[in-house]
């Protein structure tokens, strides 16, 4: 796997977890470093025990967040845990009650009530995430007990790397009030870049391809840049991200990764099978002329009820191939999760008046069962 793909696949690489990869990436070659700085406009950060590529997207999508989190409160707790860890160095120890007390005192606009089960569960999700990311370690105790008992005590220690979890911004984040504002100011500080305008275009186009994985008509300027610079981009990507193949259509461009990579679409889940089956149905309906794509954007605008009835057909026809959990789900439940996943992946967007806009990239991968003769007999 190329160094760049490794940096993309991992939020960060820690010496204590994988020292071999850590040292390999710490000594990242000059060309890749230049590609990261010049074409992606991203920061490559190394410390004595961690390397990290800051992955700023062109257009943030839901799947790019912390999917372990279920509520906005989880994120708010994470921020306060990070604040709490700010003055803790490696191996500094603290108690769960220190954190709950800190959050109680500092939570915006209200005092957190730890006698509420949902608050305790939320904090456990956050602490588990921090542990998974190796920002904290458990020295003693079981944090799961906190769900049942608000008096449960756990001894943690900080690893000191929480300070690198948040990106480094050129000005204080208190001056922003939305992600749009932050992204818009990305290029306010173009330290030493000679031709800012064209550089920004290039950087945004590369970010769209490399970090987001695809660029569609919604980022018209970037898509146009990609089309014009097709040859250059192809050769640059071949050099630095050889696992990727680069595809352009009139309405969008995307990267496909051939190597085994952690986070892919499709993945090996039953829900993914359902998405692929519905995509196949939609595509054949489009080919038959039942639906038509928007002439320039190639999006499909479809009413929720139509989409649901397509899913219903798919469910009827194929649910015997699904695992028990999915076979037993009601149409409503399956449709709810289907639509949620579709939006999370950035393949669709809910519109007003019950319409869904489906992006063309969703139709590029379809699924079909390969039923052998014997299997067919047993149906």
């Amino acid at each position, binding site marked *: 796997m190329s160094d760049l793909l490794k940096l993309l696949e991992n939020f960060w690489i820690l010496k204590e977890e994988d020292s071999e990869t850590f040292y390999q990436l710490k000594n990242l070659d000059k060309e890749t470093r230049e590609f990261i700085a010049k074409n992606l406009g991203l920061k490559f950060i190394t410390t004595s025990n961690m390397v990290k590529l800051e*992955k700023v997207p062109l257009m943030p999508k839901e799947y790019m967040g912390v999917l372990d989190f279920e509520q906005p409160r989880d994120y708010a707790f994470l921020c306060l845990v990070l604040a709490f860890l700010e*003055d803790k160095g490696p191996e500094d120890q603290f108690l769960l009650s220190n954190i709950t007390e800190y959050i109680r005192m500092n939570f915006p*606009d209200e005092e957190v009530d730890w006698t509420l089960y949902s608050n305790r569960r939320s904090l456990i999700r956050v602490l588990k995430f921090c542990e998974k990311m190796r920002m904290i370690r458990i020295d003693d105790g079981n944090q799961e007990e906190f769900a049942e008992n608000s008096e449960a005590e756990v001894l943690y220690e900080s690893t000191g790397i929480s300070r690198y979890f948040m990106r480094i911004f050129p000005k204080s*984040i208190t001056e922003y009030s939305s992600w749009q504002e932050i992204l818009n100011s990305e290029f306010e500080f173009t330290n030493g870049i000679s031709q800012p305008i064209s550089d920004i275009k290039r950087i945004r186009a590369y970010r769209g391809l490399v970090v987001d994985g695809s660029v569609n008509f919604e980022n018209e300027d970037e898509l146009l840049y990609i089309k014009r610079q097709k040859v250059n981009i192809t050769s640059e990507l071949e050099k630095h991200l050889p696992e990727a193949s680069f595809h352009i*259509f009139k309405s969008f461009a995307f990267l496909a990764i051939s190597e085994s990579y952690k986070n892919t679409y499709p993945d090996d889940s039953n829900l993914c099978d359902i998405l692929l089956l519905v995509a196949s149905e939609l595509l054949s309906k489009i080919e038959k002329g039942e639906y038509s794509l928007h002439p320039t954007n190639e999006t499909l605008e479809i009413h929720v009820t139509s989409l649901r009835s397509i899913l219903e057909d798919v469910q009827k026809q194929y649910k015997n191939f699904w695992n028990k959990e999915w076979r037993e789900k009601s149409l409503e439940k399956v449709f709810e999760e289907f639509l949620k996943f579709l939006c999370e992946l950035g393949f669709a967007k809910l519109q007003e008046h019950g319409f869904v806009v489906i992006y063309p990239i969703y139709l590029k991968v379809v*699924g*079909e*069962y390969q039923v052998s003769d*014997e299997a067919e007999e047993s149906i």
Partner: protein
Amino acid sequence: MTQFTIPLLAQMKQFKYLTEPNAERYRAILRFCFLNHMQYKNRLTKDEIYSFLKTLPNFSEYTEEMCEQDLKSLVDWGNLKSTQDTSKTATLQEFKNKRFLYELTSIGLRIERFLFELENSQETKAELNPKHIEKIYGLLISIDSVLKDPQKQAVDWWDELTSAFEEIEKSYTEYISMLTSSEYESLMIKEKFLEYKSKLVHYLYNFHDMFQGYLPRIRTLFLNLPQFKVDELLMYIIQAEKEHPKNIFRDGGTIEGYIKSRWQNIKDWFVSPNGQAERLLEQIQQIIRKVSSYAARLSESSTLKVNRTEEYKHLARLFSNLDISECHKLSAVVFGVMCPKYITGDFPRATESTTISILDLPSFKVPLKSRGRLIREKIKVVPASEFSEEKKKRFEEYKKKIEEENELLQGLLIGNKIEFEKLPRITPEVRKRLFVWLSRGLSSKVANTDSGKKFRVIRPQDDKRCILECTDGKMDMPAYILEFVDE
């Protein structure tokens, strides 16, 4: 080592004054005597002592009688000695008071000096000065020339050696303990420390290098020094020590043992593997590492402008006002994308055109497989490469065990039998294995070994017994036979 004698273990009443209920009074008296002694005023009258004590805060209730009693106790315990003042008295009252002069005994003086040093230990000279090591190296080299005129030089040589060694012991260990003390560590996490850091590391490195350079040379000198030279040298030193007026009353044997063991200790300090010298080097390395990591931590945190607490609090507010799908997006922007997602698949290579529709090229078809039990695909043979690492490991272990068993079996078989009577001397492991088989065989007609070999047990006729010889002893047992049978 000096010969160990019982009287050493008797109670030392000279130390009593430190632990008695009235310790405060006794200690005040002796400290006063000691401080006067330091100014060469060795003898004090009861009045001088009493009037000084009365000036102290806790002594308002203190009476002359109490003072007299305390002085008497201290004399009894051997900390003070009293001598009659022989000077003429001016008044009758004075004469009646039977004036005594009080003076610290030599042991009393030493105890007080020791206590005084303990209390003021921060004033000691802790340092890592390589000159002491150099000195010892130089002294070892000069042994031959000392031996040319031992009468004159041996004692001086010995004094220099022992004092250089004492310096090493004292100043180095104190320096190390100072650097590793908690007060010093708390200094190291202050930002100001960065200014001293390089100086300190340089100092440590410098010493470390010097020491590491000298150590093997000193060792070689010690190890190559012929014993007769050592004996000769020490002999002169011992002789001189014995004759020294200060040692008139000391036993000659004790002096000799004392000097010899000091020599041995100095040698061991440098020479013995994992000895003190190596430990010192190790400790210095550890300190250098620690100092560097503290410094790295400090410089990293200062580049991050240390406190972003307010920013986190602001972010917490932003997050709590959004819905979860917008939270994920904000997270991607402020923390970065957790893990980018890519499409995988074997897509037909697009033409040169950048204006083709997605419908112009076929989509990538993913072959799906059944996930339920309702429809089973043909059972595929799983190739070995799909074994998980864990399974592979267990399988390897199993294979190894079977091979070992077969090997063992081949070694013990005579024909198709293992006869306990005819076995050679065996190890307890082999015995254990045989007994496992035996017990299996005794409980059923035909039994299996772990590798699947079938056998049955033949019970001895007439209860014949045999001696099983093992590496850990002999065992008397029935002369069983294990007969292996084919399928």
